[in-house]
C-alpha cells in the first residue's frame, strides 16, 4: 500500500545534508510550512541554499534559519519586507549571499526544473540590471533573457488537505509557490492541516497530484499561530 505519511517532522527531514538546496513555499505570511521550517532549524544542517519568495520576518520561518546562521545563500524575489530584520542584518554583514530573481522568473525557473526543461527565454528583466551577465536574444523583435531551471534537494511545502498518496489541496492564496516547488524538489515534503482518506479529495480539484509529493505530515490544527 502506498502511504507517504510520516510520523514526525524529524523523520520527514532526517536526510537533509549540509549544503543542500531547500525550497520553501509561501508568499508573505501565507502558505509557509512553518512546522517543517522549524524542524529544519532544529535539524541543524548548515550552508543551506534557500529558494523562497521572501526571506522571513521577525524571528519566524526563514528568518529563524537566518538567525541561526544556517543559510549560505538565498534565492528570492522580495527579501526585504517590513520586519525582515535578520535578512537585513546578515546582508549588511556580508554573511549571506543574495540571488535576486524577478518573481515570475523565479516561479517559471522552478516550474522548468519540475517539467524537465533546460531553460527558457523570458522578456522579464530584459534591458535591466537583473539581466546583466545573462544571455539575451531578440526574438520576433522583442528582447528576452535566457533563464535556467532551479532544482532543489528538498522542497518543503504547505497544503491544506492531503491523502496518503500525496495528493494535495490548498487554502485559497496559500497555494502560491507550493505546487510548483512540489514539482522541483528531488524530495518533496508536505505539511498539511488534515490528512484525509485516499479517495476523499475531488479528483478535479487536486492542485498537486501525489506523484510530486514524497512525504506528508499533518500538523495539529492550523499552522497560523507562529505566522
Amino acid at each position, binding site marked *: 500500500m502506498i502511504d507517504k505519511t510520516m510520523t514526525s517532522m524529524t523523520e520527514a527531514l532526517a536526510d537533509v545534508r549540509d549544503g543542500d538546496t531547500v525550497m520553501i513555499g509561501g*508568499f*508573505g*505570511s*501565507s*502558505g509557509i510550512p512553518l512546522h517543517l521550517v522549524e524542524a529544519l532549524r532544529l535539524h541543524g544542517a548548515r550552508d543551506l541554499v534557500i529558494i523562497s*519568495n521572501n526571506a522571513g520576518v521577525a524571528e519566524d520561518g526563514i528568518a529563524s534559519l537566518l538567525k541561526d546562521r544556517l543559510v549560505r545563500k538565498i534565492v528570492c*524575489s*522580495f*527579501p*526585504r*519586507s517590513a520586519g525582515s530584520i535578520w*535578512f*537585513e542584518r546578515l*546582508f*549588511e554583514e556580508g554573511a549571506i549571499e*543574495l540571488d*535576486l*530573481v*524577478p*518573481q*515570475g*522568473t523565479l*516561479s*517559471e525557473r*522552478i*516550474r522548468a526544473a519540475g517539467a524537465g526543461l533546460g531553460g527558457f527565454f*523570458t*522578456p*522579464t*528583466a*530584459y*534591458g*535591466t*540590471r*537583473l539581466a546583466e551577465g545573462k544571455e539575451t536574444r531578440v526574438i520576433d523583435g522583442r*528582447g528576452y533573457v535566457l533563464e535556467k531551471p532551479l532544482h532543489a534537494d528538498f522542497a518543503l511545502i504547505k497544503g491544506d488537505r492531503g491523502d496518503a498518496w500525496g495528493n494535495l489541496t*490548498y*487554502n*485559497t*492564496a*496559500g*497555494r*502560491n*509557490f*507550493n*505546487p*510548483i516547488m512540489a514539482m522541483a524538489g528531488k524530495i518533496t515534503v508536505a505539511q498539511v492541516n488534515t490528512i484525509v482518506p485516499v479517495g476523499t479529495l475531488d479528483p478535479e480539484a487536486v*492542485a498537486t497530484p501525489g506523484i510530486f509529493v514524497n512525504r506528508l505530515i499533518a500538523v495539529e490544527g*492550523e499552522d*497560523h499561530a507562529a*505566522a
Partner: protein
Amino acid sequence: MQRLEPEQIAQRVARDIPDGAYVNLGIGLPTMVANYVPDDRQVIYHSENGILGVGPAPAPGEENPELINAGKQHVTLLPGGCYFDNAESFAMMRGGHLDIAVLGAFQAAANGDLANWATDNDRYPPAVGGAMDLAVGAKQVFVMMRHTTRDNAPKILEKCSFPLTGAGAVRRIYTDLAVIDVTDAGLRVRELYSGNSLEEVQALTGAPLLPPE
C-alpha cells in the same frame, strides 16, 4: 499650482479603468484606485500571489490568514474569483492577459522606461518582487506617482537614473499635477489639472512635454 492629494490621483486613475477590465494594482498608493472605481463598472483585480477577483478587506475577526494580497493585507474573494499557483499567476502577467497594471514609480522616462524597484543605495538590500513581470506583461502600464521628489526634483526624466524595472514599459503617467501619455513623439500632456499651466508643469519635468491635442 494645484497638487492633487494621493486619494485624488487614485480617483483620477479610477476614471480610466473601463468596465470588465482585468487590473493589477501595485503595492502602496495604486491599491487605493479600487476604492474609486464607479459602482456601475465591474473590474476584476488580479493579485500576483494567485488570485483573480480580489474583494475588499474582510470584517474584523473574519480574516483567513492564508488569504492575503500582494501587499500582504487580508482580503476576500469576490463571487466569480478563483485561485491558482504562482507560475500561472505570472503567466497571466507576462502572457499579456492583464488589461492594466497601475504601478508606483521612483522615475519614469520620456521613452517609457520605468524605475520602481531599486535606488542606488547598495547597502540596503534590493527587492524586486513582481514589478518587472508586470512592466513587460500588462497590455497597458499606468504609472501613478508624485510629479516630483520631496525636494521638488523631477521624477519624469529623459532617461531614468535609477536601475530600470522595464524598458519602454509605461503607457501613461498620472501625477499630482497632470496626466501624461507616453507616445512615439514623446511625452504628451493629456490633462492638466485645473489651475496648472503647461509651463508650470514643464518646469517640474525633466523631459519636454507636448501640449494636449
